[in-house]
């Protein structure tokens, strides 16, 4: 088991190295002069030259890549062109709201989608199944920001249950914290829930007509025990896999949700960086989010052994 964990950890190193190479090369691969594009139309030629030096575009590719990779490895993600502060600090400061929002959306999505998918498969072709799968297609098609605005209109403006926008840290108390995060987490989690519900249903359908499920039923186990203890446990591997792959949806969605709900997280930082043409910040955010994504999928790989004792490392 430990040797497997180590080998999987080592396998993520080349992936992250290639991610870093791609992110770094973008500056060089893009046609035209990136310094001029980033400096904007009003920039003087001195502005462009200064930016060129800041971005390291005045040095040869390999020299610059070597310096940059070493800096990244030691936790230095560069300096913001706009505020002149270290990018790593800017991201760390904004991390708390983003982590809170993502985890809450993840929990909501799993809690809604898995039971829904199980029931849909158990009564496949029935009303719950049709309704759930219809909602899943709708969930896929409703853009995060449209759903967010609909939720705000209904729950905040009409019913006044939740605040329209803003964020309260957990330190201010659990109730205001959850009240501010409820709508954004729900809006963010819905697409993810649609994906998980479909996979849960498909995976459960494959398992439900297996012999051991019939045996479990025949020996008089309750429906819940059969569905959860026998079927869901065996159907878990594809479900967990799609939870890992779909995590990318949360990362993309966070940028939009934080903008709509005015949450001061990493997503909002990204949007501000776009408006200020602050490329080092954009670069740093990509690197951090890609790293998180690779890590999440590593955890998913390792979790297989929990669900399926036949998988031994």
């Amino acid at each position: 088991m430990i040797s497997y964990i180590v080998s999987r950890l080592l396998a993520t190193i080349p992936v992250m190295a290639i991610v870093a190479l791609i992110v770094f090369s973008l500056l060089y691969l893009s046609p035209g002069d990136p310094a001029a594009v980033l400096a904007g139309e009003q920039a003087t030629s001195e502005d462009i030259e200064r930016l060129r030096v800041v971005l390291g575009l005045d040095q040869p590719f390999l020299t610059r890549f070597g310096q940059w990779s070493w800096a990244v490895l030691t936790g230095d993600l560069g300096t913001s062109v706009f505020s002149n502060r270290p990018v790593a600090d800017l991201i760390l400061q904004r991390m708390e709201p983003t982590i809170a929002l993502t985890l809450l959306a993840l929990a909501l999505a799993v809690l809604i989608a898995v039971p829904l998918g199980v029931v849909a498969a158990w009564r496949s072709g029935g009303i719950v199944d049709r309704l759930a799968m219809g909602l899943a297609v709708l969930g896929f098609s409703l853009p995060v920001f449209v759903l967010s605005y609909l939720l705000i209109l209904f729950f905040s403006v009409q019913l006044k249950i939740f605040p329209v926008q803003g964020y309260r840290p957990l330190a201010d108390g659990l109730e205001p914290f959850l009240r501010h995060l409820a709508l954004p987490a729900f809006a963010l989690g819905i697409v993810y829930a649609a994906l998980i519900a479909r996979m849960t249903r498909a995976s459960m359908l494959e398992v439900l007509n297996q012999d051991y499920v019939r045996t479990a039923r025949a020996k008089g186990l309750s429906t819940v025990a059969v569905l959860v203890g026998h079927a869901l446990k065996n159907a878990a591997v594809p479900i967990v896999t799609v939870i890992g792959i779909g995590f990318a949806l949360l990362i993309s969605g966070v940028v939009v949700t934080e903008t709509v709900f005015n949450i001061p997280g990493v997503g909002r930082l990204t949007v501000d960086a776009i408006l200020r043409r602050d490329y080092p910040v954009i670069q740093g955010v990509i690197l951090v989010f890609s790293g998180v994504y690779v890590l999440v999928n590593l955890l998913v790989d390792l979790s297989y052994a929990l669900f399926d004792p036949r998988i031994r490392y």
Partner: protein
Amino acid sequence: MTAATDRTPAPGRIARVRALAVDHPTIAIGIAMLAVVVLAGALAPLLWTVDPQTISPANRLRKPNERFWFGADLIGRDVYSRTVFGARVSLLVGLGVAVAAIATGLVVGLLSGFVRWFDAVAMRVMDGLMAIPSILLAVALIALTGASLQNVIVAIAVSEVPRVARLVRSVVLSLKEQPFVEAAVAAGTPFHLLLIRHVLPNTTAPLLVQGTYIFASAVLTEAILSFIGAGTPPAIPSWGNLIAEGRTVFQIAPHIVLFPGIALSWTVLAVNLLGDGLRDALDPRFVSRTR
């Protein structure tokens, strides 16, 4: 008699299409819904009621009425006419991204399937690309190249290429093991004929399904990019831009956000339904599982 036979090569095909529509109603619904959007986009110059670029401060934030069907925006432009023109942008981006991603992915996938050293390099690059969240990759590319419709299409297509390439590669690898392909190779079939007769026909069905999903996700991604200020230039009335413009005033004038939002959701839903239907109809694995 001859007139009848002249017209009858079709019945077989029509009957088959009709059977497909009956077996997979989602295909028919998806096509019908999509047709509305395509017509709106194609006939936009005839359908608009108020010139979409005309600014009239007197009408700013006007609620929907008989002159401004979907109301007016922050500077008094007609939301209905702008939404109708927005269909063109979304369809163009969806189609552009699907074609670009499939063409590039097809070449990379074919090369990977047949050339071993290329495979080793290309698949590592594809792994790396897939680990980068697509929105962020597009944001970085657009920040570096400047906002234009063409750059938006390229930026979105880049992160869709790996999925196509992997799909094509897996088709090629499984085909190479098939007896009929081995027989064709043994019989000395030239490579280009092998490609045209045996490999490409087997990629069309999965690529068609994949293409619809790419289309849907590209339409969504373009809207998101415009919304966060990294997409189509603000002067172009794309749905994402319209929604972004209504963002600050959305509590007093929700119509600026809602109508383009409905158009966007409608389009994505149409393409998703079509894709789901096509997948069920074309994927033999799926059919055998459900029947």
